[in-house]
């Protein structure tokens, strides 16, 4: 088998013996080629049959489904077409686009990216926070417009050290953010579904109370029906006029309309956002203010994270087909 194009040179007969894995949309490079060496990828969009008929024709084969990207959502309708499905493998940390409850009912396991993205998302959250407080992007714009010699020094920013940082969702990403910010002299506290007994950070069972005693909120929790708009008007007002919100979770964790209003009316101090409720749409009011930093959902886009998630996906599929424990099943 040639290293450059292994899939193309694998003889058809050998490909037939590879375990079949269903896709619902194309995989981008480098994922496709790597997976095609180990698995027979079923691709409905390459068939002349409409998707439902393709699924019905291949239902017997479809024990494992790869979910790449937030669409299509893996909903009850699709699951109903796949009676032999036992595993959904997601490329993301978040599985809000998968009907997890329906999977559970049907005995279908779901795996996510495990820890593949933890470091990059944590790094990005810290960078967003430093950027908002120290105005890095805003000052960079100021400099590039040639304003330093004309208008003088840029207005002062705010010190990161000593800030009380409230982590909303102390999973692996939230913990990685906490570990980093401790080195900057921040005080860490958190809200989670339940208190973590081995953690010494102060726990808040109520997000608004956490906000009231924090200078910064970093949103790193999963999006589900309980956490939709968990950052709402009450929380934002409790955070207060100097408060900063950093969201690297999902857009819908934050009431975006309310966030924009609070920013415009100076009810909160600033925000660093990698995610939005209706991507790629971003509220245009935010384009004209300097106390927000905006990014297009790219916290995981490093070669290292891509390599990492590919390994997790491959590992989960290989474990499944050899009846070994899955690497990163989602917890409930």
């Amino acid at each position, binding site marked *: 088998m040639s290293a450059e194009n292994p899939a193309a040179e694998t003889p058809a007969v050998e490909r037939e013996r590879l375990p079949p894995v269903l896709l619902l949309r194309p995989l*981008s490079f480098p994922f496709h080629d790597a997976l095609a060496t180990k698995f027979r990828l079923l691709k409905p969009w390459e068939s002349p049959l409409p998707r439902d008929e393709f699924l019905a024709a291949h239902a017997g084969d479809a024990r494992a489904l790869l979910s790449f*990207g*937030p669409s299509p959502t893996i909903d009850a309708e699709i699951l109903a077409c796949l009676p032999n499905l036992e595993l959904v493998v997601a490329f993301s940390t978040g599985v809000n686009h998968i009907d997890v409850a329906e999977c559970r009912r049907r005995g279908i396991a779901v795996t996510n990216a495990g820890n593949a993205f933890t*470091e*990059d998302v*944590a*790094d*990005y959250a*810290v*960078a*967003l926070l*430093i*950027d908002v*407080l*120290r*105005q*890095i*992007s805003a*000052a*960079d*714009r*100021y*400099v*590039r417009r*040639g304003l*330093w*010699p004309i208008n*003088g*020094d*840029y207005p*002062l*920013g*705010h*010190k*990161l*050290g000593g800030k009380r940082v409230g982590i909303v969702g102390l999973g692996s990403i939230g913990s990685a953010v906490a*570990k*980093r910010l*401790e*080195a*900057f*002299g921040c005080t860490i506290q958190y809200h989670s579904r339940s208190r973590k007994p081995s953690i010494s950070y102060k726990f808040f069972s109520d997000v608004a109370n956490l906000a009231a005693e924090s200078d910064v909120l970093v949103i790193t929790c999963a999006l589900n029906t309980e956490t939709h708009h968990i950052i709402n008007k009450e929380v934002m007002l409790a955070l207060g006029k100097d408060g900063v919100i950093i969201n690297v979770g999902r857009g819908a964790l934050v009431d975006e309309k309310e966030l924009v209003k609070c920013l415009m009316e100076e009810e909160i101090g600033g925000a660093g956002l990698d995610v939005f409720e209706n*991507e*790629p749409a*971003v509220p*245009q009011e935010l*384009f004209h203010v300097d106390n927000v*930093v*905006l*990014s*297009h*959902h*790219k916290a995981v*886009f*490093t*070669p*290292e*994270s*891509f390599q990492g998630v590919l390994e997790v996906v491959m590992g989960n599929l290989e474990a499944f087909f050899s009846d070994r424990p899955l690497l990163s099943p989602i917890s409930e």
Partner: protein
Amino acid sequence: MESLGVLLTLPMNPYLEAELHRRCHLFRLWESPPARRKDFLRANAPSIRAVVGNAAVGADPETIDALPRLEIVASYSVGLDKVDLARCRERGIRVTYTPDVLTDDAADLAIGLSIATLRRLCEADRYVRAGSWKAKGDYKLTSRFSGKTVGILGLGRIGLSVAKRAEAFGCPICYHSRTKKPNVNYKYFPSVLELAGNCDVLIVACSLTEETRHIINHEVIKTLGPKGVLVNIGRGPHVDEPELISALVEGRLGAAALDVYEHEPDIPEELFRLENVVLTPHVGSATWETRKAMADLVLGNLEAHVLNKPLLTPFL
């Protein structure tokens, strides 16, 4: 200290200026046009016993020579490259500065700039603000920061703080300093060239002296290489700026984050067109909290001097 004549070189901090005006006899250097500056100094020299300068305008040889009654230079900065220390030493003039209070801010900025540069954060912000985000998954890959080797040039207060922060990201740390530091676990390199050859992100955090002028030169930049990142939170003259710009334009250096420049506030416009740089206008200590602390240190040093008490943060 009403009798203390203080020459303030620039309007650097409204609170500091107000306090100096209230508590001392304040002379504002910028109120005289540059052409009349010599006359201004001559006229007020009998009263001026203190100079308060900053990283932009300090106490240069001409100023010190024009002030025969000068007793103390209280710098509103930690860098003293704009103070003629040799002359001060000769004349027995005390020099104070503002160490420690700005250490955290400078280190925070160094790490913020490092991640922003590797992860192209400012570029992302520009992209979104331009309305260019039209399709989901519209991305390019950028370099991870965690785990990258961070090389620190100058392991003083600020350098050590940078190291402590970078360690929390799993970054191996190496450094070059005039001398190897005892009790430090980081790998030492005896030359800046070797440091550049062994790190992914090189952070300049040393003081500017005759020896360190243009310490980041063509060779060092070439060694850092097409994937290397330079972060300068020291002084502009640490870096051969034209050399740096051509290396960035030609791809011989991967990326750079600059908080300081050779001729502030004038920055070569070629930098404005580059996507692989982050540019900030000398904001290393520019937070409300730190500038107040720096101002209080300047005032405290002047007061101690007038009362013949030990200076709070003397350099000389």
